[in-house]
């Protein structure tokens, strides 16, 4: 099951050229971009790990692509990778744009668990098949 998250999630995966143009837009807007990765695909997982430091001094998207490609080399195929752009402008001070730039080779998806509650209510919850394995060992076959 293809997981969607962040901006452009309704589109097919962006090509590198498209990613580069988005990044350039972020840099030109003065936002600090950084790369993050995780292998916990749950939508409520907000704790992605940071790849290197935010790139405050990079002016051109080609510089950011170097880091993305390095991260893909080390973490790709087994992790989700996303790019965040942080706007430190007064009144915003938060992430302005965030989108996925890399995903594992195969995504097994989620199991739906039903729990019977009092008064015949049913509580639904999802659990990623990948999360059955310990962190760092997921998405490997």
């Amino acid at each position, binding site marked *: 099951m293809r997981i969607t998250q962040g*901006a*452009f999630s309704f589109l097919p995966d962006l090509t590198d050229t*498209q990613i580069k*143009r*988005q990044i*350039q*837009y972020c840099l030109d*807007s003065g936002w600090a971009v950084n790369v993050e990765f995780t292998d916990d695909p749950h939508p409520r997982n907000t704790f992605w790990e940071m790849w290197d430091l935010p*790139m405050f*001094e*990079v*002016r*051109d*998207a*080609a*510089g*950011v692509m*170097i*880091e993305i490609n390095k991260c893909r080399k080390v973490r790709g195929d087994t992790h989700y990778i996303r790019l965040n752009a942080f706007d430190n402008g007064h009144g915003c001070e938060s992430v302005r*744009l965030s989108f996925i730039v890399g995903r594992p080779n195969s995504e097994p998806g989620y199991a739906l668990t039903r729990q019977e509650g009092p008064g015949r209510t049913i509580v639904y919850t999802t659990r990623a098949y990948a999360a059955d394995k310990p962190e760092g060992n997921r998405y490997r076959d």
Partner: protein
Amino acid sequence: MSLPPNFSCHRSERRRRAISETTRTADSHANCAVHAVNDLKAEFAATGLGAVLEDLDRDLVGLAPVKQRIREIATLLLVNKVRKRLGLEGDTPTLHMSFTGNAGTGKTTVALRMAEILNRLGYIRKGHIVSVTRDDLVGQYIGHTAPKTKEILKKAMGGVLFIDEAYYLHRAENERDYGQEAIEILLQVMESQRDDLVVILAGYDDKMDAFFRSNPGFRSRVAHHIDFPDYSDGELLEIAERMMARQNYVLAPDAREALADYIVLRRRQPLFANARSVRNALDRARLRHSTRVFEGSCGGVSAADLSTLRGPDILASRVFQERQQALGGS
């Protein structure tokens, strides 16, 4: 809140482009009977490059061969750009350069201009310049160099990486020197990311020669070797006058004469650094000038007093005193 480019209104954008296209073809049909649709002169004007090259001519004294080369490179890039539009595609020309010449001959100054020129022609996307020396690229211990060099390269993407005194990267006497690692990363990026950044190496003539000899990889990746000649005495005097004018000072006639003598004498001394020596001499003259004005003032000083350098301000220099001693001693 502005939106990412994907969200821009596609339809109106396309229409605007279509309109400008039709007017452009209509114009060119009206103006030229022949099928010459690509007016190079108009193309040149559109880049705004004329103004940049004129500024270069005006701001920098002398350097005729350098200016000539820059014009040639600019023309090449312009022609290449038009060719590309016509589908006559060749490889992106290699734009890595090396600037050789003695201290203070304007290498750094020209590199800054070069970044602007390349940006105007669309060969680098941002037009900034990241200026580094060995210390910024080479680390202190094993495993330190590669991240350091890559960090700098990341910052320089889309612009110019200016490596001053590049020959320090290579230490012939120590074959395990970490500089070699930085050199290898640079060589690789200079080849594989030619579209993303331009590298300019700078340094003194003889040392750069030796550097290129021991690193043939660099020599073959650098397309333009530009030599910066020493300035003549007259040129240095003119540079001095421009520097002063820019800072709202004037040279009195006797100061001008003294400065001309100073340049002749200073050139014979060790560590002569062309325009930089002149700038330093002028900085010291300003120091003496302010002391003189301060101590000599009783009551008001005029704006003219505050901005005129006189002969004594320059003649008090160490260079003249040494000559005096030499003359007295003989």
